[in-house]
């Protein structure tokens, strides 16, 4: 392998952290793409190379599904909804501090309740991704950011589950779930943009 398992885990933690903390859409989207690549590398040690490659390809597909819509929404001011004005909860320092806390909680839970039959690095990566994914969803103020959080969570979950269930059919259906999820995000984002135009 090009990278060691530990490096891959740190890489995944970094990408998940970027998605949660940074609001710039380009960074978040590229972080998501890298995330899928790193997951593919991580799984290549325990799964067949073709399946790992399929994961990476799926990640690429999702990237190209999300990119056009977010590109179309570039340059427009962020959605200012009266009920969701910038509050303390959505500021950068709190996102950063919260992410660190979430990572610590995830680590602590794994330490207390380890996953049986799962390699430690996989378990760690999975916990981090699931926790950070949920945290991103909670912080998210629109379909794009919430969608990224969901995809991160789903990635973490699949990382864990594929160590137990290696059926091709199940893997295919899980991939389909990801693709469909990725398709809803630009649809909802497009609706959000359309509503914003109407409001102006």
């Amino acid at each position, binding site marked *: 392998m090009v990278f060691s398992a530990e490096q891959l885990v740190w890489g995944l933690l970094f990408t998940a952290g970027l998605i949660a903390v940074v609001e710039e859409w380009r960074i978040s989207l590229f972080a998501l793409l890298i995330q899928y690549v790193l997951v593919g590398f991580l799984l290549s040690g325990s799964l067949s190379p073709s399946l790992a490659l399929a994961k990476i390809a799926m990640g690429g597909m999702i990237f190209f599904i999300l990119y056009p819509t977010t590109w179309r929404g570039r340059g427009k001011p962020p959605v200012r909804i009266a009920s969701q004005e910038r509050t303390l909860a959505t500021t950068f320092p709190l996102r950063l501090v919260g992410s660190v806390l979430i990572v610590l909680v995830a680590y602590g839970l794994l330490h207390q309740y380890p996953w049986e039959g799962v390699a430690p690095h996989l378990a760690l990566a999975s916990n981090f991704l699931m926790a950070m994914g949920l945290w991103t969803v909670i912080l998210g103020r629109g379909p794009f950011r919430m969608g990224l959080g*969901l995809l991160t*969570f789903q990635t973490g*979950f699949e990382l864990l*589950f594929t160590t*137990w269930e290696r059926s091709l059919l199940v893997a295919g*259906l899980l991939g*389909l779930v990801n693709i469909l999820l990725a398709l*809803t995000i630009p*649809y909802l*984002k497009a609706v959000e943009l359309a509503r914003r135009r109407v409001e102006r």
Partner: protein
Amino acid sequence: MTPLWIIVVPWVMAPWVYLFRRHSTIATFLSAGTALSVAIICFLLPPDQTVSVLGRGLLFDPWRRWLLLLLFAGAVLLFLYSWHLSQGWSFFPFLLVTLGLLAGSAMVDNFLLAVLLLELAGIILAFLIQGGPRADPRVAMGYLVPLIVAGSCLIFSTHLFDLVALYPEDPLSVRLAVTALTLGFGILLAVVPFHLFLPAVTQEAPPMVATFLLGFYQVVALSLMVGLLDRQPWLKSEAFNVLLVAGFITALGGGLFAFLERAPGRLLAYGTISNLGLVLIGLGSASGVGVAGAIAHLINRSLAIVLVAMSWGVISERYGGERSAMPWGVARALPWATFGYILGGLTLAGFPLTGFATRWPIYLALLPYNPLCTFGLILGGLGIAWGYLRSLTPILGRGERPPGGREPLLVAVMIVTLVGTSFLLGIYPDYLLEPLRNMVEGFSFVAG
């Protein structure tokens, strides 16, 4: 003709319907015709068949037959309603795809695959919930997040089943599995306190989409749970207590929230949540009377949901889009829709001639064990009734006539038919209860 047709036919027709999605008449008749054909196939196919697809079995037994019949017959009504009252351009083709997925989920004999198919169907529903630029996209996201989390919990539980099979004496595995299942089904079925996403969805989504989610999608999810109880005997010891407690909290909580509510969409959500609690209690009683009553109540609940949603859909459409409160003077302008709305709401509350008949067996099943909880369930119904009866003030008041005119004739006929069916079920419940009692005797978790 095999059960595979039930899954394949809707998928085959979906692209054709998509082509004509902007021509409502063609789309309606294609979709309704497809759903009707599949319903007829379900009726004509002999039960107790198994088909193998990709190494997995598709079961078609009496239980699944009636479930799929309900699903597709209900879909016919939804399609016909949408002919004159649009539910979004994506409604017809996407709903057909969803129906195929749900049929697959109901029939596949592997729980993991069933959950995945259910999750896929749920994601497609998110497109329908959005239904165009009118609704707030945060609502659809708010629906997707719990769906994915619930799906993950249920998928995770399948791994725990393997652990339980390997270490049956280990109570931790059983407890973990029950916890995962509770979380998964709790979120999917919007059991209190996991119901947070549902009222906003019911308020913002097109009425028929909300109907499909509450009255049919949840029914299929519940059928997965029933199938699990039937096939996994180790679940019985813990699951029934969970069902009873969760059911009681849901029934009472839903009734309380309904009591406080005025917006018709949210009121419908809380009313259905409360009724789902009753169904869970019936299942948790594990008696023939209770389980049969629960399934009968599920059917009655779906009927009431369709009635309320159709009626409210007409009212909100005629008065200009989604409204957060009942307009004034509706009774004079739209008498049939008003009557359907009130009667459907009272059915959800357990009105004597309609909703009470299927609640009665559940009360009877619970009463010997816990009379106090039984009385509590009645109070839950009272909350729903007050919520709906309070809307009588604007309904009977004087207001402007809607610019959209009267109810479409077809919709009025459907409302009247549903009202008649509700009364029939309320006066002659044994027509439904008797065959159900015979069917539930075949479930392994039913005692006596």
